[in-house]
């Protein structure tokens, strides 16, 4: 792991996110976690010095773009603010204006110019079977580039890597039983090829926008956040869904949901994977804090390394 000082040096002038925005992002709108438990004043000061123009290259493998789409749902700071004021998103296949070699040449230029400093975001799994041919991400001089090539090459050059979404973190759906593509997450590739760049797993199918923005900000201001055994920030994945579930009291009273449309009761009999799932959805909730899976139906454990096989069949009691 890189030390804080080194990561801090990747920063440049001006703050892009107000302190208020930052705190709200990290604590969630329900403000269950006090800022003092998470950051000290030095971090806040560091953030004020700013993140502007930190170069980010975002590459996509076997994914659905759902994590990128989810990131657009960021409330505070808004995605417009993130794009215009916080980071310099130099490569993102779904958003960037450029295409073809113009885009790839710019990506390689940034990677060389900011070697050891830029952040690499990986979305989607990396297929290792068939020489990586199950995911072709571009071509230069009529030679095709696979997602595996790109993950290795850029992974080695990056200052830090964020594996965004369960596919990039652990393989996710493309790595589920039955797959023939040898899909794996970033750490799987890094392990095989001996790449040691510090990596933060931000699982979720999809990710919650706060998890990504909070992790980026943490990475750039204070370095790699404290990670659990699965490489996830404890800040967002440190608590169990079931143990914090608003329906836990009902379980104690023996009130169980009769069906998926029953608003009352504990959902364990319906297959809820909350007891095996660690994430702060119970307080952060989704889409501007309006709803979440357990209140709507059940948790299917989408942030866990074994997803989907560990919780499938989803609708059978575990």
């Amino acid at each position, binding site marked *: 792991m890189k030390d804080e000082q080194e990561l801090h040096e990747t920063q440049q002038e001006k703050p892009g996110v107000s302190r208020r925005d930052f705190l709200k992002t990290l604590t969630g709108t329900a403000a269950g976690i006090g800022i003092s438990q998470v950051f000290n004043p030095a971090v806040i000061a560091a953030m004020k010095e700013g993140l502007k123009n930190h170069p980010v290259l975002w590459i996509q493998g076997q994914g659905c773009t759902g994590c990128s789409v989810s990131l657009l749902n960021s409330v505070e700071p808004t995605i417009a603010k993130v794009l215009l004021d916080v980071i310099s998103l130099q490569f993102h296949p779904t958003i960037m204006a450029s295409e073809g070699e113009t885009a790839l040449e710019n990506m390689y230029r940034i990677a060389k110019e900011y070697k050891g400093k830029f952040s690499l975001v990986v979305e989607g799994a990396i297929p290792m079977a068939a020489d990586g041919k199950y995911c072709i*991400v*571009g071509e230069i001089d009529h030679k095709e580039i696979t997602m595996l090539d790109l993950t290795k090459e850029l992974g080695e050059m990056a200052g830090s890597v964020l594996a965004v979404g369960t596919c990039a973190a652990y393989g996710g759906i493309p790595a589920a039983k039955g797959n*023939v593509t040898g899909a794996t997450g970033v750490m799987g590739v890094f392990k095989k090829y001996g790449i040691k760049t510090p990596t933060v797993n931000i699982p979720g199918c999809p990710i919650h926008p706060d998890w990504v923005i909070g992790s980026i900000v943490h990475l750039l201001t204070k370095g790699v956040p404290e990670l659990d055994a699965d490489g996830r920030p404890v800040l967002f994945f440190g608590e169990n869904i079931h143990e914090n579930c608003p329906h836990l009291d009902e379980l104690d009273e023996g009130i169980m949901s009769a069906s998926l449309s029953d608003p009352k009761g504990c959902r364990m009999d319906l297959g809820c994977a909350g007891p095996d799932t660690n994430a702060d959805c119970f307080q952060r909730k*989704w889409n501007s804090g309006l709803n979440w899976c357990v209140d709507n*139906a059940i948790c299917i454990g989408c942030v866990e390394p074994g997803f989907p096989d560990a919780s499938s069949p989803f609708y059978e009691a575990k």
Partner: protein
Amino acid sequence: MAGCKPKSEPAGSGKKIKVSIDPLTRVEGHLKAEVEVKGGVVVDARVFGGMYRGFEQILKGRDPRDAAQITQRICGVCPTAHAQASVLALDDAFGVKLTDNGRIARNLILGANFLQSHILHFYHLAALDYVNGPDVAPFVPRYEKNDIRLDKATNAVGVNQYLEALEMRKICHEMVALLGGKMPHVQGVVVGGATEIPTAKILNEYAVRFKKVKKFVEEKYLPLVYLLAGPYGDLLKCGGGHKNLISYGVFPIDSKGNTLLKSGVYTDGKFSKLDSDQIKEYVKYSFFDSGTGLHPSVGETNPNPYKKGAYSFIKAPRYNGKPHEAGPLSRVWITNPELSKTGQDTLGVKTIREIGDAAFSVLGRHVARAEETLVVANAVEQWLTEAKPGKETLVSTPIPKSAEGLGLSEAPRGALLHYVNIKNSVIENYQITSATIWNTGPMDDMGQRGAIEEALIGIPVPDPKNPVNVGRLIRSFDP
């Protein structure tokens, strides 16, 4: 600046020049385009689908109910569409009779995401082909000569709307989440109906948000699309393609299978009723060793990335042996609703069919998509009044031991088919023919190009170093 590598002399010399764009960006997934340019226009085209995940193999042996969750992960822009097609297939197999409230809740979930997807597509995927973004990444670099024709003030309007549209599409996702739990990837759409029984409070929260979105569609999105027809009028004259259209129909408006956007087929200038038995998938040029010309109910998916002569991980679906285009143009052409006031005032006609060939064009597809957004918005308004607070949305039905189900629906980007075959209460075979396959698929065994490939023919590429119109055409399909 690169972006393409002309292999020989510049256009106009009479020789063919090969231009390839890889990655073709601002689309969902991985796409490469390779065109041959002669005399300043495209004379041949190939579209390559560069990714395979294997959903159909992953689904084998699973609890059928899981399919609606797993298949949503095919597309993070339109997961609700896969959820809908999947639960229609499962409802069919399980013998479910939906409640009205269940059908309406599903429509409100899918409808909100149609609005989200069309807004996101026009502003965040396509608009940078017509508007210059701010001069910072990810809006630069661009093609050196990117053919942006808006004056400064109009361009600024475009950029402001790009930013405002980010907020609008977020609001649409909030609407989805109110009934679907979260978005992307909803929990609330399941076999038998929907899980969130709408309360008066939820419907009100939805309605408050919806009003803002509808206003944006009427006052910003539609006018901007029609405004582009001025400076980019030539783009109403190219990109027609096969001019064959297919729609499976979407948004059930009753229990009899009638839909808001109608099902139907338009082939060689003639309309016909959809007969799903006529859908076959060909794989001669696809990286699959499976049988070719098969109906999805007997479909096979055996990938072979080393297959000789193949160039895409996408199969080539055909209707009655012919390639068809799917998406908003197909649905609007087949349904033929009255155009918006902006549309009628600008075009001087009442329906899209009256503009004839101009509809089959780069901008024609954007017009159809924007018009469809309003049609869906008007329907959402209606469903909000039809939803009954507190009334059951879900019917519990046990998993059948053995059954088949077909789900025909529409994603924002086009016709979507899910087929499930259940044996011993688990999935024996699951097949998906998605919109992207209809549009971005390769040549078929008979040598007919896919929909986008054909539409690329005749597209002007006066400067092969800046093949702007290739991306414009491809993105007009929202592949």
